[in-house]
């Protein structure tokens, strides 16, 4: 336990390793063991995989359950030595959390790599077999490869730019310009263009589909109009100014209830937010139930392989 917990002797602290060749060796060993484990799991019969996956799911889930339920040391200082098992476990859980987060981050990065690999495999095969729309696959592969090569090349130039010369575009090489054109000039602009297209669909839908055909539709339209008008600062300002001129700025006047900001705030506070809270509450309960089922291995889909 001392190896994992915050021990008095830093050499015994599992998490307190200094970076350097020893740490690098440890990383390579861990990587090799990881690959070996992965290949071993691939060799395991399908039926036997289920308990292995469940064990890891349960172990990881248990960490977070313990983290939230185990008593935590109050005002614990890094140079303090934990006393007794309860405190030692509490300190260990606290210390281990960032590592768990790092492992979760690493897993997400691996998933990203897996996604790239999967995308490349599917589209390469589509191109080789000349399946339907294969030219689009070529465009995707070429774009992906070009962006990766230019991006990494530029990244290495930037990290070796100790004097910060590359901050000024005048000092850019062709790679810098290529990266700028691909990232800022293309990807970012296409992102914005994709999103802005929504405006056209919304306008078209507002004209063709937003019709008062029922009481519900009328209530929805009234709320939408109030909120849209409240987003238009000028309308809000003029409307409120009009009410102020009638009430003479009297704060206690009943007419103040009809200021656009007051009406929209009422709609948001008493109609919109409670509805969202109710939805969130339902989603939260569902997530809790699903989490418990996966953690305890009751969800077949969660642990089947």
């Amino acid at each position: 336990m001392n190896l994992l917990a915050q021990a008095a002797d830093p050499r015994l602290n599992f998490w307190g390793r200094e970076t350097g060749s020893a740490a690098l060796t440890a990383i390579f060993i861990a990587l090799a063991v990881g690959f070996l484990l992965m290949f071993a799991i691939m060799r395991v019969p399908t039926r036997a995989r289920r308990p292995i996956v469940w064990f890891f799911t349960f172990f990881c889930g248990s960490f977070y359950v313990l983290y939230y339920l185990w008593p935590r040391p109050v005002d614990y200082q890094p140079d303090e030595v934990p006393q007794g098992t309860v405190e030692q476990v509490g300190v260990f859980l606290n210390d281990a959390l960032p590592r768990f987060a790092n492992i979760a981050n690493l897993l997400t990065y691996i998933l990203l790599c897996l996604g790239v690999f999967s995308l490349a495999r599917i589209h390469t095969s589509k191109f080789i077999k000349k399946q339907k729309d294969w030219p689009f696959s070529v465009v995707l592969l070429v774009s992906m490869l070009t962006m990766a090569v230019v991006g990494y090349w530029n990244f290495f130039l930037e990290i070796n730019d100790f004097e910060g010369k590359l901050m000024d575009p005048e000092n850019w090489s062709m790679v810098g310009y290529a990266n700028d054109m691909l990232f800022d000039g293309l990807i970012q602009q296409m992102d914005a263009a994709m999103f802005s297209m929504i405006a056209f669909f919304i306008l078209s839908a507002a004209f063709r589909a937003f019709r008062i055909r029922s009481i519900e539709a009328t209530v929805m339209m009234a709320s939408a109009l109030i909120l849209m008008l409240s987003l238009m600062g000028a309308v809000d300002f003029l409307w409120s100014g009009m009410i102020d001129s009638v009430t003479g700025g009297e704060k206690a006047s009943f007419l103040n209830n009809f200021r656009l900001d007051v009406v929209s705030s009422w709609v948001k506070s008493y109609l919109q937010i409670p509805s969202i809270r109710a939805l969130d509450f339902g989603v939260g309960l569902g997530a809790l139930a699903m989490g418990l089922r996966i953690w305890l291995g009751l969800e077949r889909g969660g642990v089947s392989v």
Partner: protein
Amino acid sequence: MSVNNETKPSIWEKLQTLDRRILYGVLIVLTAASLFIHVEIPVNPERNSKDFYISLMDVPQDKIIVIESDWTNSTRGETAGHMETLLRIVMSKGHKFAIYSIADAQAPQVARDVIQRINAEREEQGLKVYKPWVDYVEVGYSANAEGQHNSMANDVRQAWGSHKERDEAGVERSVLESPVLAGVRQIGDVGMLVVVSASSTIDTAVERMGGKVNMGFMVTGVMGPNALPYYQAGLINGIAVGLRGNYDIEYMMEYGLNYEGPDGKVKNAYVEKRDKVIPPFTEGSTFGRGARYFLPLHVALGLMILAIILGNVAMFVSKSKGAK
């Protein structure tokens, strides 16, 4: 010979079958044209924007601001303006800041571009330019929001300790050694955490760090309704929602809050917090992207309201004609 009315469609019936490309054309022309018209539109800033502004302006000078930048250019109409306004305030107040991203791998570069843009603007105005490592530090990108927020809430130094950046001399060091993060041990030591987001990372930020640090959000109009319950519940100090929220902040930077102008009138009065007086900004830019896009927003929304009204009137007229 009399003409049969049934064969000659009225203007309302024609509207019912209006080609959508005409609508698209009108939207493009009007919004694009309004981008060239610069007018200052008066507003009454929303209460949540005022609270966000107060919270940001109340951060003590010696405290750092942490910015979570979770947006890309797909939402630049709103979030690029948020980020620019936030950086203008932070830099004008002279706070050091740390910046990290969670939602999207593109986000760090997009944020870096904005920092460069605001630095260039400040250089042009003869103001202090923020230097990496000394005045601000990038804490990188993490792919897992849940893990990262959990880790930050637990121990921010352990969460960020493994990230390295180059110091002034070009030597790679842990970001914890940067003067920016000196004195920061727990997330609560940070003056304020501002999440500039177009995604659901706001949820995990509140779930894991709510109550541990002063928190404020600058989110898109789409994410606003998701984030407002947190504001109403007091889990975050304030929130600037969408383009309107951005313009609210710019407007308060220009005219102050509860501040009596030279004409003797108080602009941006906050009745519930009347004693909180914030004077206008005296250096740097105040109006920016929010002011530039506010008129196009009016035009687009006005057009949408008009489309709804016209569509419904056309439907009723056609119906009543059919009934006759």
